[in-house]
């Protein structure tokens, strides 16, 4: 039994940094996968829809934890090369959460009224131009809230990487517990760490959501904001909120 020394605190802080990195990299890969697979699932060619649909089902139906172990321990045995644990983790998390995200992208794109696409056809836009200028900008505000959920799921999912020996928060906590023999303080601390990270993510995504809604001329959920840029002042005014009372974010 011993106290948590400053060296052990440093370990936890480093773990925090690793978790943040894992979240950012996996989210970036996941977003790329989500858009690629999600759009492929709305493609007019059945084979593209089939392949992307199979990808979605495959990754939805497998455990991220098992998959991560598999990528790290089984793939090297068959292929003869091994990924650094960090990248094996990012690859697994990105592909898994990207699969969930593809459903969000597919749904939001499908929810854009057909009439908007028809207006695009009438103006002579190509399919790619319609997607880029009309469909995706209108689908984006619908994607942000479910993406926020997925992002937080992903953040918590990064704890799985401790099984590969990646030094994230959870792994650091295990080391600290081994060193001190006490579980309660360290696991309480990391619970709070995860919560604070998730809370910050949510705050950030709220801002993204407000901006996205304003970009299609819709009012975002009313919330006091002192950070409105001039371009969005009209929206803020319509919402009836006084920006002088704005809180922190």
């Amino acid at each position, binding site marked *: 039994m011993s106290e948590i020394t400053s060296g052990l605190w440093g370990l936890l802080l480093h773990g925090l940094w690793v978790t943040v990195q894992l979240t950012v990299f996996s989210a970036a890969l996941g977003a790329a996968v989500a858009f690629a697979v999600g759009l492929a699932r709305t493609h007019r060619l059945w084979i593209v829809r089939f392949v992307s649909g199979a990808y979605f089902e495959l990754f939805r139906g497998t455990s991220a934890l098992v998959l991560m172990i598999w990528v790290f321990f089984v793939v090297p045995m068959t292929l003869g090369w091994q990924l650094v644990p960090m990248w094996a983790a990012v690859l697994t998390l990105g592909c898994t959460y990207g699969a969930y995200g593809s459903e969000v992208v597919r749904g939001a794109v499908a929810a854009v009224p057909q009439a*908007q696409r028809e207006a695009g*056809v*009438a103006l*002579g*836009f190509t399919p790619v131009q319609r997607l880029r200028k009309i469909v995706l900008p209108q689908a984006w505000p619908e994607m942000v809230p479910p993406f926020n959920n997925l992002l937080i799921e992903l953040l918590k999912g990064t704890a799985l990487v401790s099984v590969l020996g990646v030094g994230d928060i959870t792994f650091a906590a295990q080391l600290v517990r081994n060193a001190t023999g006490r579980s309660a303080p360290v696991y309480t601390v990391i619970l709070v760490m995860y919560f604070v990270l998730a809370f910050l993510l949510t705050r950030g995504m709220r801002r993204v959501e407000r901006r996205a809604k304003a970009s299609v001329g819709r009012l975002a959920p009313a919330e006091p904001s002192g950070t409105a840029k001039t371009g969005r002042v009209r929206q803020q005014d319509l919402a009836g909120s006084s920006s002088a009372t704005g809180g922190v974010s």
Partner: protein
Amino acid sequence: MPADAEPSIPKTAATTSTVDSPAGGPGGPGSRELIRLEQVTKRFGDHTVLDRLDFSVDTGKHVTLIGPSGSGKTTILRLLMTLTKPDEGTITVDGERLFPAPEQQCREVRKKIGMVFQQFNLFPNMTVLRNITEAPVTVLGLSRDEAEDRARELLDLVGLADKCDVRPTQLSGGQQQRVAIARALAMRPQVLLLDEVTSALDPELVAGVLDLLRDIARSTDITMLCVTHEMNFARDISDQVLMFDSGRVIESGPPEKLFGDPDHERTREFLSAVL
């Protein structure tokens, strides 16, 4: 509009050989055939919306399609805009095949055609100005400055010069529809398709939009193909009125004739119901 309008559309589509009506065919005096549908059939499931339809429209003419709901009027506009494909037949616009045709060619033909929709269909993710400039810049390759000059002129024409920077959602229905008209005109189309453009508007906003369209019909040489339930408007702007029923043109002629002394019993019934 002129009483001497040359009927470029066969009296009835039921007789299939009348496509080349005296003044209509290619090389007709003073006007050129711009749109031509031959033996066009469109089915939705078991329901035949258009039944071996033949008709043509000459350059610069204003043609109005009237008839009961579900008689296939809107489908014709949608076929011309390539929003739907016919099951049989051929469609030609300005000498170029629109159906059957490869996508690349359809894209070229589409540039000649503008369409205004019943529900406006403005893009909510763009300002009013951007709604009008985006296609000229992206599709026609205009510089942004050129496109904006053109857009401001058109906004001036439709009486919304002060609304450049607002979002479509902040406009009334009538204002949105006028922006949609400006957006279609910004592409300088040869043909303007108007699909029940006042049906979704509050009654007090209808007159403004119709007056604007009357202006455009008078002051430009654009070819107009118009589906409407506004019979007075149809009478004012049309060179030719086509009465549709069950996927066929049952009667056509200049508005004076069709509204004044229709030949067909079905036309009389329809007009007495809507006038």
